[in-house]
């Protein structure tokens, strides 16, 4: 199967066209037309991206396998876990958020649950202490402030 490159090439071709078209829609800069405006370089780029995208569709390389559905869901869960961590730093505080994400990641990478929790708690507390006390970069305490 050589589908990956064809699909990806197609997406990139669309991106090239949209990007190039938008460049032509830039408002005229203050002070009038110049020989090289803000749109010149982007238009050149869209041409290069388009050319390589077309080549990719015409001469695709063999596919690398995509993960099967359960694995794909797992990868998505990992991505979501990091996003939740990013969101939670301020409302919940750094330590609870970090314990959650490190424990989850270690567990998903194959550590048993107890070990994951130990790694999660110890690394989060250690990093919090290093950042707050040694490096003097304040991380939010959040819930633990009470």
């Amino acid at each position: 199967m050589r589908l990956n490159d064809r699909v990806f090439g197609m997406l990139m071709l669309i991106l090239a066209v949209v990007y190039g078209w938008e460049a032509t829609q830039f408002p005229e800069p203050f002070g009038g037309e110049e020989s090289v405006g803000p749109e010149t370089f982007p238009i050149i780029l869209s041409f290069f991206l388009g050319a390589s995208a077309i080549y990719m569709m015409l001469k695709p390389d063999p596919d690398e396998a995509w993960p099967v559905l359960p694995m794909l869901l797992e990868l998505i869960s990992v991505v979501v876990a990091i996003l939740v961590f990013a969101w939670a730093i301020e409302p919940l505080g750094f330590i609870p958020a970090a314990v959650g994400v490190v424990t989850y990641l270690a567990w998903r990478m194959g550590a048993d649950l107890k070990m994951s929790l130990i790694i999660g708690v110890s690394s989060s507390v250690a990093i919090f202490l290093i950042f707050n006390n040694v490096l003097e970069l304040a991380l939010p305490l959040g819930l633990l402030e009470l």
Partner: protein
Amino acid sequence: METLDFLMQGFAVALIPESLMFAIIGAILGTLIGALPGLGPANGVAILIPLAFSLGLSPTSSLILLTSVYAGAMYGGRISSILLNIPGDEPAMMTCIDGYPMALKGKAAEALAISAIASFIGSFIATIGLVILAPILAKFALKFGPSEYFALFALAFATLGGITGKNQFKTLMAAALGLMIASVGIDISSGVQRYTYNTLELFEGVDFIIAIVGLFAISELLFFIEKHAGDGLKKVAINKLKLTMGDIVKVLPTSLRGALLGFVSGVLPGAGASLGSFISYTLEKKVVGDKGEFGKGDTRGIAAPEAGNNGAASGALVPMLTLGVPGSGTTAVLLAMLISLNVTPGPMLFTQNADLVWGVIAALFVGNLVLLLLNIPMIGIFVKLLSVPPKYLMPIVTLVASVGIYSVSHSALDLYFMVGFGVIGYVLRKVDVPLVPVILGMLLGPEMEKSLRHALVLSDGDWSILLNSGLSIGLWTVAILGLVLPVIVGPMVRAKMSKSKEATSS
């Protein structure tokens, strides 16, 4: 002798306690980063940039820290090559060929010690080369006008895939993507908003440090999980070191040859450390001929590639510092560091920031000595740390990377961007589009566009100015050769590399 004076001044900077401390910390971290399979040098340096940044380190200290990490990673790569038969980073591949057989014979400690000595010689000679060549090249580069710079940037992209690159069009695509990301934000010379969609956060463009950490570190995490690589690998046990003076003398000529070849391939665009170690190994095999036991654990087979890749690592700093055009992923990340510290690399660096440049070069010498001293007696500790399985290590690395990003601006949005780039990096790697040109595009985009504009303003819109000097025609020629040659030569070199690798593993 002007150079010597500058170098002495550099040592004055590099030998103050603060610099020494950063050199030692960098050397240790770098060795670890290099030794852990999957956590390459570019990745490791990228994770440390936001940390150095949010700590408010001075440009000199940050750069000393990160160049020591860079040098250390080249040392570290050999550890997993020898003990696991898996290169810690790509240039260490050739070290597997003789290193692993030696380890199997119960001579792992000797292999590690000899490779450390060869690495030291490689870096040392190449750093001397850097001292000699960099000021000359910097002076020469003062002649460059905007059209030459534009050609030079094109050359950097064209040769980035390297002589061993697989698909030139994918390199081109990656470069275009990076340059496109760089164009987001308010255009510096006209003030027009480009691709911001009136989002305030995009006005200043996309921060490349966030992109680098996302593309490298987060996508690596996803690959680790997908491959179930969490448990790590079995390694050969390490013995007690028995090294004689004779063993060292035996590899000296080899290391010297390797160092020189490595340096040259580091300086040349498109060659890089992998090719440096490959050429050194092949040449050594030819020079020694049938007397050697290459592939079965010959010490010279370890010394040659190690001297080669360490030489190339220092050599690669020459174009990065003098022209502002990096030739490899890791030097690209170092360039990112410089730019975010508001230090503009290029010929002017040597006149305007002489302290910084020479301090860093002197720090390379110091760092190398530190590395040699660390790597022989303390090798046992590194080996122990290497046996921490990735399932414990990767989550912590991810946490450190995220905290680094977060502490720069204290905004969760930056972390969302980081994760977004991680997903993009994962997809790009799946379709075999290289990530380094994306980074390089983001870094060089603004400068490249600026030089195009300057050139065309000077010529009043006449595009032929891009080809109006012998120098720029020369640069374009090399750029075109860099794109075309790999299509012809690449398959041959790759076949040779994998053949010599297979010959040993079978």
